[in-house]
């Protein structure tokens, strides 16, 4: 073994890499926001009285959950222009992340809604609570508490998945790293370093979610 590790290209590219981290975080946050919107909308349609809407949501969830994200992002990337929509790679990636995350969010949120027993709501009304109070205290908060762990771990997964968006050269950490790598050929050093960056990003996210959980969703109820 006569290879010498050389981190100079990584150090030279550090400002770019840190900007890439920011890109990754932004991509992830936008993807999460879109996923929540799709998730809530999907749950409403999924439990609607209109059967075709129910089937469509079901089919959407199964389709997205059983195909790779890479294929989805390619498909969306090529499909959008045909639909008359010209988007840059980064918005396209956000759309793909949102759609992918949304399919998982539908299942998770639905589980949370179903976890609230009808008797709970009836009991709340019988105690003379307002409809709005019942929704806030008896439906929303316990449902959020029930789904919080799975939803947030899905979000961490979504954040890690943003690296795949480099395949359509969206602006994020992996594509920045690929540029530095192709200039310097220091593949191991570059990818090893950003792997650590990803580890830090996901660790910070997990800590953040744990803090929120401890603050708002811990028993006894505050």
């Amino acid at each position, binding site marked *: 073994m006569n290879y010498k590790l050389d981190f100079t290209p990584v150090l030279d590219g550090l400002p770019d890499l840190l900007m890439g981290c920011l890109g990754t975080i932004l991509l992830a946050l936008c993807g999460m926001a879109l996923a929540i919107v799709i998730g809530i909308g999907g749950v409403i349609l999924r439990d609607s009285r209109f059967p075709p809407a129910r089937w469509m949501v079901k089919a959407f969830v199964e389709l997205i959950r059983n*195909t*790779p994200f890479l294929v989805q992002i*390619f498909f969306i990337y090529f499909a959008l222009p045909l639909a008359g929509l010209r988007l840059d790679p980064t918005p396209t990636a956000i759309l793909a992340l949102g759609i992918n995350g949304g399919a998982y969010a539908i299942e998770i949120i639905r589980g949370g809604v179903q976890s609230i027993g009808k008797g709970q709501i009836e009991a709340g009304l019988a105690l003379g609570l307002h409809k709005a109070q019942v929704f806030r205290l008896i439906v929303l908060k316990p449902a959020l508490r029930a789904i919080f762990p799975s939803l947030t771990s899905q979000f961490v997964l979504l954040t*890690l998945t943003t*690296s*795949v968006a480099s395949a359509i050269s969206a602006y994020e950490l992996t594509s920045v790293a690929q540029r530095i790598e192709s200039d310097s050929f220091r593949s191991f050093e570059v990818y090893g370093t950003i*792997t650590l960056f990803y580890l830090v990003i996901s660790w910070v996210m*997990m800590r953040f979610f744990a803090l929120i959980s401890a603050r708002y969703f811990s028993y006894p109820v505050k």
Partner: protein
Amino acid sequence: MGWNEFLFLLTGLKWTVALSAVGFVFGGVSGLGVALLRTSGIAPLERATAGYIALFQGTPLLMQLFVVYYGLALVGLKLDAWIAVAIGFTLHASAYLGEIWRGSIDAVPKGQTEAAKALSLRYVSRMKDVILPQAIRISLPATIGFLVQLIKGTSLAAIVGFTELTRAGNIVSNQIFQPLLVFGIVGILYFLLCWPLSLYGSHLERRMAIASR
């Protein structure tokens, strides 16, 4: 898209299946080792395996593939792309399956371990005959869920340059300029592979939910 292009996609599908199978089998064997070390009760081993698992769960699969791929070349191992990605997926799977199975081992009631100890069963027999058979049953839905995730994950080998289904799709779509058709078919092929597994997994999950009621 002609017949030849479709056959080329099927060849890619074959490699996707092969890569998933290798990753799952070897990852399963080493994952069992990870799970056993993680629950061994020996603090340094538990901490080391916990770190191993956290490392793989906290980084993108794509980076794991890159680092393994270039890392192996760096230590002087001139390996086929196929072997390098297979090692990458094996490591990935060992961490995830290790964590899933750790959870299932922990989920087996403590009384089972105590009873086995009271019968003076040794560690190997206690695990092999008492704990693991129950843990495997508990872990089955999650294990199948991970298998689906692994099959989908093998698509990332395309980015490293290994010609499995997704990269085959890339190549064909560059030849015939019909990306939507090609990636539509590629998506359907993945779906046909994954959906039955997903259905089986949720069937098992429902059955277990009923049994535990």
